[in-house]
């Protein structure tokens, strides 16, 4: 098995699976009908991307695990998503700000990976890039509307930025075991994306009259399987049906 490639695919897939599941928690609860449908669609795109990435991870591993086995039968310590993705969905402001912060990262990451020398990764990335672009557009518009909106929406959007910012640094910490994949052009160095991410994010925050905190300690651990307590609770809900009835078909 190509272990670094398997791990790299888990990082890509788990980010989308966990964020997709968190977003799906809004289904039936969003503030307006259009937003309920939008968040359900965004969740679906993320889970679809995870489906492709984890499916490929299973093939690379060669141990007979498919995407469902990887999604439903791994424990929190085996998940490789960034901590940002697993935090509770919070209020609508937290959900939107998180999708915006992660979405801009995703667009840059897919853009780089669409040039991957691995044709499967390049194909998935080119497809996901189109989807992430309209997610970012949707959430970016909301960030401005909330930040530059009423006193209440501004306060909540600013609180969301303050809460989430310490979790953004992990996105750009390049895992050491990916060095050979990066030099072979299979993977993309995430640390090289930070400058472009900051420029895009600052531009929207400025238009939204929001400010990013400075000099905060950046949390990390998700990429190594050290998660917040929130992931275990989320997985318990996400995995219970598959684990209670293993192999069930309908």
């Amino acid at each position: 098995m190509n272990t670094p490639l398997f791990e790299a695919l888990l990082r890509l897939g788990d980010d989308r699976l966990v964020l997709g599941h968190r977003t799906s928690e809004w289904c039936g609860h969003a503030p307006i009908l259009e937003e309920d449908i939008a968040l359900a669609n965004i969740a679906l795109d993320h889970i679809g991307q995870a489906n492709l990435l984890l499916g490929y991870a299973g093939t690379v591993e060669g141990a007979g695990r498919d995407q469902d086995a990887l999604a439903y039968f791994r424990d929190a310590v085996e998940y490789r998503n960034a901590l940002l993705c697993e935090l509770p969905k919070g209020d609508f402001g937290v959900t939107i700000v998180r999708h915006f912060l992660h979405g801009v990262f995703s667009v840059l990451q897919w853009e780089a990976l669409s040039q991957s020398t691995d044709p499967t990764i390049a194909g998935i990335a080119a497809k996901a890039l189109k989807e992430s672009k309209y997610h970012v557009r949707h959430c970016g518009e909301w960030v401005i509307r909330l930040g530059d909106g009423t006193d209440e929406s501004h306060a909540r959007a600013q609180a969301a930025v303050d809460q989430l910012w310490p979790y953004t640094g992990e996105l750009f910490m390049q895992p050491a075991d990916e060095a050979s994949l990066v030099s072979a052009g299979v993977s993309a160095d995430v640390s090289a994306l930070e400058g472009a991410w900051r420029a895009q994010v600052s531009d929207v925050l400025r238009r939204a009259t929001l400010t990013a905190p400075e000099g905060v300690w950046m949390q990390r651990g998700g990429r190594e399987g050290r998660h917040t307590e929130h992931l275990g609770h989320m997985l318990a809900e996400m995995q219970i049906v598959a684990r209670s009835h293993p192999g069930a078909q309908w």
Partner: protein
Amino acid sequence: MVTREQVFAWLEEVKDPEVPVLSVVELGVVRDAQVAPDGAVTVQVTPTYSGCPAMRVIEESIAEALRLRGAPRVTVQTVYSPAWTTDWIPEAARAKLEAYGIAPPGAVVADDSLVPLRRAHAAVRCPWCKSTRTSLQTEFGSTSCKALWRCEECRQPFEAFKAI
């Protein structure tokens, strides 16, 4: 002996479950097909959206349609590259979409900006009264591939295929 042309002709009768006016060939989901010397048929499909829940049904419908018409063995393969685009939907199929009440997609416009707020939309024509005085309500409609629009002329809501 089945020919590649025959396979395509048969697949023209397999409709998208969510947009039943379009065949899987017109939609651009079917990318290619080969017939082996022993008659085994292989069809390459590409998903529209990563999370499109109709893809599984589409793959099963393709395999079933070909088996019913006598193909001995059918394999449906998924390819991701090049990524699906609405530019593949031919003119005749666009007319069918409009007649069905769904505004067809415009040409895909290259978009370099990441956060193109106040995005300029190409005029979308109301499939009912044909007015172009229309406005986007939400980019997320009843399926991944459609957005919700409203006609300012006849005041009817309608769905439009997103250009992607």
